[in-house]
């Protein structure tokens, strides 16, 4: 396996522990830990502050804080319906959750959860984690019988279980886990919870579109746009948790990539970022991909197989390279790059309207708009149930289609007036016209807001810069 990116010298673990880099990092993490802890003391911590803390380096630092921050964010992104508001699952119901007749997917859930946490050494801990995992998944599925379980969902659920794992209190946390995973599933994972993989495949097809925004050659050479990039399906369906298994936290503050990936997704309310990360991974390794492509060209009869094999090889190498300390170093730098791009509003996103269904989280609940508008995007449970129902009906239509028909299906989708106006009509106007319209709108808003000084401050410091940057990046 001739890999090239690790030619730089890597210090041993003990050398690293003595280094300035390690100690600086530790100081920074400790500081961040204290800041978050302080913020959480606030009885109503502001959504925006918590969100920003999740996006920046180290995410929510450790699981003690992560539990609380995820709860703040997810509960702010979601308003529970009146009927279910104070409904808690009691112990008797929990036992019922583990009966086969509860949900069609019960058997599959049992098969997958039983095979989970293979990497946990302690048999007692392992048994408890498995049982909790099963209870949590069945809890979410019974709350929403319309959701279909898929292999890989258990990997995502296992991240939640690990974040809430507390040696003493794991059983008391089950309700909270079910509640948060339920919100996460409804807001972020609807495309995957259909009874087929079609919407998930639509999502991974966005990857070549993202890549072609910065490197058309890579797409053309590997013909990424001419095939379903199935090599990415396990990463995207599991939000990387199939590759990066969530580990038990040790006493020391340790890095754990998978938790920080989830922090970023939840803090930005964006399902686009996993796709962006994958695109960046392929771009970062393109020379290696070209090399492997040439070497293996003769071994494979069809291009799909060849590309799948070389991407799998490069991913596997990226997961295992270096010693413990440096495992996934490449993924860390990708994560940091995505964080920065997001903060600077530089995430390159293709127009998705012809590629995914209009009810997709990518276009609705997790379209990564929150930091841009600085508005809390919260969704009512009833509305989400409606979206889910509509998506399920559309999936029935989509399931029996291929190639050109799918494009047609998505092209014919109607969008609410406002989105269309923003996306299509104004884009075609000459910049000067756009500019004058925007200035006009801004003047009107200023007049209204001037009366409220408090809002005006926010307007000046936040909204104007946002408008200008949007203007620069999108319209001009």
């Amino acid at each position, binding site marked *: 396996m001739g890999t090239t990116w690790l030619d730089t010298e890597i210090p041993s673990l003990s050398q690293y522990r003595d280094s300035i880099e390690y100690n600086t990092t530790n100081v920074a993490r400790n500081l961040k830990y204290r800041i978050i802890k302080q913020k959480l003391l606030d009885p109503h911590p502001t959504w925006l502050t918590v969100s920003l803390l999740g996006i920046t380096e180290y995410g929510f630092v450790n699981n003690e804080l992560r539990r609380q921050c995820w709860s703040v964010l997810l509960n702010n992104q979601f308003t529970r319906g009146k009927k279910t508001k104070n409904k808690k699952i009691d112990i008797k119901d929990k036992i019922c959750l583990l009966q086969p007749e509860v949900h069609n997917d019960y058997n599959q859930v049992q098969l997958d959860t039983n*095979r989970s946490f293979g990497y946990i050494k302690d048999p007692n801990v392992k048994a408890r984690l498995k049982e909790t995992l099963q209870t949590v998944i069945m809890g979410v599925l019974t709350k929403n019988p319309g959701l279909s379980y898929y292999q890989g969902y258990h990997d995502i659920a296992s991240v939640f279980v690990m974040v809430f794992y507390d040696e003493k209190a794991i059983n008391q946390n089950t309700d909270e886990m079910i509640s948060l995973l339920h919100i996460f599933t409804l807001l972020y994972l609807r495309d995957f919870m259909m009874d087929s993989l079609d919407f998930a495949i639509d999502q991974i097809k966005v990857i070549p579109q993202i890549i072609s925004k910065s490197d058309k050659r890579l797409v053309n050479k590997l013909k990424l746009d001419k095939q379903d990039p*199935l090599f990415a399906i396990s990463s995207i*369906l*599991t939000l990387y948790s199939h590759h990066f298994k969530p580990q038990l936290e040790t006493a020391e503050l340790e890095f754990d990539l998978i938790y920080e990936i989830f922090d970023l997704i939840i803090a930005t309310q964006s399902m686009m970022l996993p796709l962006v990360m994958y695109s960046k991974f392929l771009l970062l390794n393109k020379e290696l991909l070209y090399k492997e492509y040439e070497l293996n060209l*003769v*071994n494979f009869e069809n291009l799909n197989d060849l590309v799948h094999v070389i991407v799998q090889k490069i991913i596997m190498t990226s997961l295992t390279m270096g010693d413990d300390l440096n495992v996934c170093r490449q993924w860390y730098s990708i994560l940091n790059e995505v964080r920065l791009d997001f903060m600077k509003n530089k995430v390159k996103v293709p127009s998705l309207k012809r590629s995914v269904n209009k009810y997709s989280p990518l276009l609705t609940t997790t379209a990564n708009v929150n930091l841009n508008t600085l508005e809390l995007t919260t969704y009512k449970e009833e509305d989400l149930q409606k979206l889910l129902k509509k998506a399920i009906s559309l999936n029935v239509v989509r399931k029996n289609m291929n190639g050109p028909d799918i494009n047609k299906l998505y092209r014919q989708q109607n969008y609410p007036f406002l989105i269309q106006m923003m996306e299509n009509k104004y884009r075609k106007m000459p910049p000067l016209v756009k500019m004058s319209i925007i200035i006009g709108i801004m003047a009107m808003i200023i007049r209204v807001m001037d009366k409220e000084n408090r809002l005006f401050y926010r307007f000046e410091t936040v909204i104007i810069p946002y408008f200008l940057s949007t203007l620069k990046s999108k319209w001009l």
Partner: protein
Amino acid sequence: MLQFKLVLLGDSSVGKSSIVHRFVKDTFDELRESTIGAAFLSQSIKIKDPNSEEDVVIKFEIWDTAGQERYKSLAPMYYRNANAALVVYDVTEADSLVKAQAWVNELKQKVGDENLVIHLVGNKVDLVEEEPSKRVITVEEATKYAADENLLFKEVSAKTGLNIKEVFQTIGEKLYEIKQVELAKNPGNGNGINGDQVNINLPRPSTNDSTSCCS
């Protein structure tokens, strides 16, 4: 050296990945994690040319697939151009043979290559050796089905390794035999009844094995 593409199909949790790992790495995990999507592995074996008695190296490019029903729609991507399919069921699960039979039917309909070697395997015989009452699919039933459908068949155990190597050995020999017949029939171009099809599915000799992927 000859290369052949082999795909594993079968219901969830029948032991597809365990069979591959026993064959490729000679290891076994009691609770191997679920496969998501598909995984690629490769392994080479030696067979003897029946005429010259010389060793021939055969390399399998193995596609291990996810078993849940919803992943079924991805399977055509993996059995396309396959030379062999290993269809797996679990001798302790009645439903798993039904699922295996569905796979056999799909392969026969969709691959449309009469030279595709289909090998049926009943896994987890170690469980019925420990406790005979666990068996729900008899050898006779599966043997009869395999004979009717013209499939190769063996019961195996990924856990103990029983018959795993033999299965791949048999497939390798069968593929080699088919290839010799094809070469004899169509030394230059494909003129036989299935000429064109046969040629498409001929394995290619591998030229740069030292650098080939993932071995």
